[in-house]
């Protein structure tokens, strides 16, 4: 996958380069500093008044010459171009895990569509339909299935893969996985985010049921198993082991 995309908006041609919260803090801090300096006159009064007035000005105008000089702008936020799951709607879960492997190994495993059902167990199959598009079939509780088309809209090798369902999908959903080097050679921090807008009716109920009361724990388990496969080559399990519960008990 060679195509990379970033989602930064063009910087607006405005002189405002200080964010809203910072402007309020500047106003409050500037006023306090000025008042304090004038109340207790001494050798520090003049510099303190100058600082206080500068903060007041920054708060009022939203323009910081220091930020300008340093190339900082806290007034503009980066945002996705288009979202398939609107902010604060539906299920939004994120969980991170540290995996003792380099980012490229993890990224490459994740980027191979046939590996996805190994990582996320509600995915039954993934069929590529184009360079950045795929058709997903997912399994839901109660024997239900759903199908939709997904596009990968951000793909920065060894850093991030983001996907979302195409408009008019049966279930609107999106997700992303980010890879960041962990400190001191501890491998890679992997953060998985999954978003779903459950539709109405039984399908929506099935989606809610899939994620249950503790959706973080649910996707945490996927990350744990992904880590196990990457670090040890297998998933730890006791499924199928012997016990004294298996109906063959004799004395």
């Amino acid at each position, binding site marked *: 996958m060679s195509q990379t995309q970033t989602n930064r908006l063009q910087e607006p041609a405005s002189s405002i380069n200080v964010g809203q919260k910072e402007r309020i803090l500047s106003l409050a801090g500037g006023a306090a500093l000025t008042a304090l300096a004038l109340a207790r006159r001494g050798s520090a009064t003049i510099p303190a008044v100058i600082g206080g007035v500068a903060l007041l000005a920054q708060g009022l105008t939203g323009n910081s010459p220091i930020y300008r000089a340093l190339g900082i702008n806290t007034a503009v936020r980066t945002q996705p171009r288009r979202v398939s799951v609107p902010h604060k709607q539906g299920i939004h879960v994120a969980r991170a895990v540290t995996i*003792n492997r380099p980012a490229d190994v993890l990224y490459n495993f994740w980027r191979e569509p046939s590996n996805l059902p190994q990582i996320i167990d509600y995915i039954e199959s993934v069929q590529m339909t184009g360079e950045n598009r795929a058709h997903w079939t997912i399994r839901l509780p109660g024997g239900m299935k759903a199908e939709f088309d997904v596009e990968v809209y951000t793909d920065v090798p060894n850093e991030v893969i983001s996907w979302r369902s195409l408009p008019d999908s049966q279930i609107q959903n999106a997700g992303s996985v980010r890879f960041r080097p962990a400190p001191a050679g501890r*491998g890679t921090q992997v953060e998985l985010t999954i978003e779903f807008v459950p539709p109405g009716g039984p399908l929506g109920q099935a989606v809610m049921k899939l994620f249950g009361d503790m959706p973080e724990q649910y996707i945490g388990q996927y990350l*744990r198993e992904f880590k196990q496969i990457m670090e*040890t080559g*297998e998933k730890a399990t006791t499924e*199928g*082991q*012997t016990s*004294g519960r298996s109906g063959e008990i004799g004395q």
Partner: protein
Amino acid sequence: MRAVTWQGAGKMQVDTVPDPQIINPRDSIVRVTTTCICGSDLHMYDGYIPTVRRGDIMGHEFMGEVVEVGSAVRNLQVGDRVLVPFTIACGECFFCQHELWSLCDNSNPNAAAAEEMYGYSPAGLFGYSHLFGGYAGGQAEFVRVPFSDVGCFKVPEEITDDQAVMLTDIFPTGYMAAENCNIHGGDTVAVWGCGPVGQFAIRSAYLLGAERVIAIDRVPERLEMARHGGADTLNYEEVDVIDALKEMTGGMGPDSVIDAVGMEAHGTDLDFWYDRITQATRMQTDRPTALRRVIQACRKGGTVSIPGVYGGFLDKIPMGAAFNKGLTMRMGQTHVHRYVQPLIERIQHGEIDPAFVITHHVPLEKAPEMYKTFRDKKDSCIKVVLKPGMVQ
């Protein structure tokens, strides 16, 4: 095969169950030749460990012969004589690679449950409740060993079964307890509890250079065995131990104190009855009677080392004493893999024969009655070895 199964508090049973199978590529199957009952098995026997299920196969101290290896195992062969640490470790995660084997990130299939309780999940353990993975244990004729390429240690010919099986838990556990004391020349180490872990802690403290070890218990034969290991002994039913320790150390107190008792302590003071009642009524998971004494007894700036098992939430721990005396506290399940080779060498050099602690050899079929004998400290029982296939 025959296996010891848990059937409820106070009820162990030897059952015929299906033979274990290879499940994962790194598994092996071991035919158990020698296995033990551990003091920590008694916590399950007495019903104080949650998430044990009826029919679970017990046992985490075992050794034997490899009879089948998984497709990904390159360093083992059928016929190898091996011992198996009770902590299951993958060898690949951050923790294993930092020799913190009992904290392995990948070996507990029920990690989510352990995270709920502890914040993060420790390693899976053989035969030690579903909170620690629910793995079938080794008090059986055969056992499945996960991650067997790092979890099976070949045993040199001259090391006997009785010696080797002590390396699966109890000797490394006593040794790590002593190592955690950070012993310097001239140090006095007090050891609370003279069960098998305490016995190994006493001897390990001397191996690591302690000047003097003072051992505390109330069972005559256990105190006798401690004296045999070079310790001075105190019977807590006869003397005020904290006063006695102060006296014996010229008023300074022991440099480090080991709690080799854990969650089912006994005592003579009021707080013991408080613990007994709150544990029995499930208002408290553990009886930290010994832990309180240990913290109280330790000298200023000293170290409290805790190999005794605790599971949940403890009442009335004298944190003020620990804080204001500037104590160091070290604890945890044993990183067995770290100690197997160095301790094999100590045995080979004749520095210690770990079989000294064994008082009983019995067939596996006798496990249920031996659980009771061991728990009740009857018949001078200190350490029970079970032999599958031994003629009764």
